[in-house]
């Protein structure tokens, strides 16, 4: 049981920046950013290749910078060339497949063998520290490191979103007319928002890559839907208002999702291959919920209406 919780916390924090990124793009900017899948692999590829070259720490900021570039391409296509936002993401995502292969040295997967990662560095550091309390938590090194990174960046984003630039970005997703009337250039705010969101996705990829000591060209498939599922799960648990709850919801949702994943994996109530289908159904239902509720209330109205008429006819 403890093992399940530990695994869930590790993966929950490692992947948490993906729902945080989607919170920025999907909730704040109101853009479904499909760059996410490719951007996640890009982050992982940059970070693993850097670790392979002996620079695991430098690999993290570089991966984020690569993510910023990916976000910029999507934003440029959307704001300047007027490509619809979903298509912009898909185009960038498709292009990233080749870029990712290029980063990985034209190989579809790359693994770390004896090279250090940020995780192994912390693990060794804790072991050698000769401080009892540090040695005791050595097993939890991955949870600690990923949690610290996630919390730092979550706080930074929260602080950023209440700055004047942050407010402008939030207003862009809220009321575009008002933004233009307030001397804000929406092309600029959308670009900044997408760059930050993709930096966060790449950060998550970078952490996952070094943690698993491997990167695969297909490891990002479906990440965007899983991220949305995490965000929606989190929002269901802790709510959406005031808006800063969204970031906390993203992180909590990511952990809850991984708890569910771990339980399914270890108890084998379902073959684990089913998870992506279930995730997709959960996301579709959650996003469709308002429409479904409306349809049911409309059907109810129709039934009441015909009943009312029937009653009169009988009388």
């Amino acid at each position, binding site marked *: 049981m403890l093992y399940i919780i530990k695994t869930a916390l590790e993966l929950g924090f490692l992947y948490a920046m993906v729902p945080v990124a989607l919170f920025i793009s999907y909730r704040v900017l109101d853009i479904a950013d499909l760059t996410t899948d490719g951007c996640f692999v890009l982050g992982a590829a940059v970070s693993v290749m850097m670790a392979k070259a002996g620079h695991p720490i430098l690999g993290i900021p570089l991966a984020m910078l690569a993510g910023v570039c990916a976000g910029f391409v999507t934003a440029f296509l959307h704001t300047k060339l007027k490509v619809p936002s979903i298509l912009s993401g898909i185009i960038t995502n498709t292009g990233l497949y080749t870029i990712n292969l290029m980063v990985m040295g034209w190989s579809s997967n790359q693994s770390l063998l004896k090279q250090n990662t940020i995780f192994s560095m912390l693990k060794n550091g804790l072991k050698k520290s000769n401080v009892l309390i540090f040695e005791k938590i050595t097993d939890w090194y991955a949870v600690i490191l990923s949690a610290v990174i996630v919390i730092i960046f979550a706080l930074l984003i929260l602080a*950023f979103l*209440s*700055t*004047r*630039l942050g*407010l*402008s970005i*939030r*207003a862009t997703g*809220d*009321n575009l*007319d*008002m*933004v*233009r*009337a*307030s*001397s*804000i*250039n*929406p092309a600029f705010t959308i670009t900044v928002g997408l760059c930050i969101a993709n930096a966060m996705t790449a950060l998550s990829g970078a952490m996952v890559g070094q943690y698993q000591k491997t990167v695969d060209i297909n490891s990002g498939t479906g990440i965007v839907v899983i991220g949305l599922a995490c965000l929606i799960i989190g929002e269901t648990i802790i709510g959406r*208002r005031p*808006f800063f709850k969204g970031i906390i919801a993203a992180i909590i949702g990511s952990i809850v999702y991984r708890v569910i994943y771990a339980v399914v994996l270890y108890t084998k109530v379902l073959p684990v291959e089913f998870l992506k289908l279930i995730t997709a159904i959960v996301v579709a239902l959650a996003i469709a919920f308002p429409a479904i509720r409306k349809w049911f209330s409309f059907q109810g109205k129709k039934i009441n209406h015909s009943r009312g008429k029937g009653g009169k006819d009988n009388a």
Partner: protein
Amino acid sequence: MLDLINVSMTFNPGTPNAKQALSDFSVHLDDGDFVTIIGSNGAGKSTMFNAIAGTFFVDSGSIKLGGQDITYLPEHKRSRIIGRMFQDPLKGTAPSMSIEENLALAYLRSGEGFSPFSHISNRDKQEFREKLSLLGMGLEDRMKQPVGLLSGGQRQALTLLMATMVTPKLLLLDEHTAALDPGTADKVIELTKDIVNKNRITCMMITHNMKQALEIGNRTFLMSNGKVVYDVKGEERSKLTVNDLLDKFKAGTGQALDNDRMLLS
């Protein structure tokens, strides 16, 4: 102050739907003018506002504001010196953000002295409070609430405050009280007069209320088919009645004024 010189704008050119919304349109406003504008449906009133505000770039002609040529200045840059309000109260404010945050965004129009990473300071909040209390709607005690919770009239009053918070060179009001109930509309009109007079803002207001068009401001335009057919101010205007205005319109265009929202009261 404001000059539109031979401005023309055709929508959907070269198609059967082509519509010349402004044709060789010229108008000059003096500093401090408050112009009310009435006209039939499709006369080009809102198109003129859109041209001035930069929603689109005009086909030909030039637009100058305060000596600066703004013909090809993008919309978001023009909004630094032009305040604008629409009929729809939902258009001017961001619903999921708080009153305070909306005001902070409006304050960005002053342009200088703000780092993009600065937060709303206590001094800003104090200033927002003072300005909100001028509206007399008790909004100063609800600064943390999302704007989406306010009524249409409150949102429109807030939008007015935001549009004039950093005094604009020109204020464009596009039937900004038309969607409000009569009582609230009166209140917003009073606020508009107060703020415009106090800050001596040059202002243009589209209205469908002919009486209001003659009472407020110092000048009135009658518009038809993308042109100003009657421009009146001073003594001639003060003697004018609503019926005179209808006659003028007929004389200027050869047809009766046709606006489905027109109020003659």
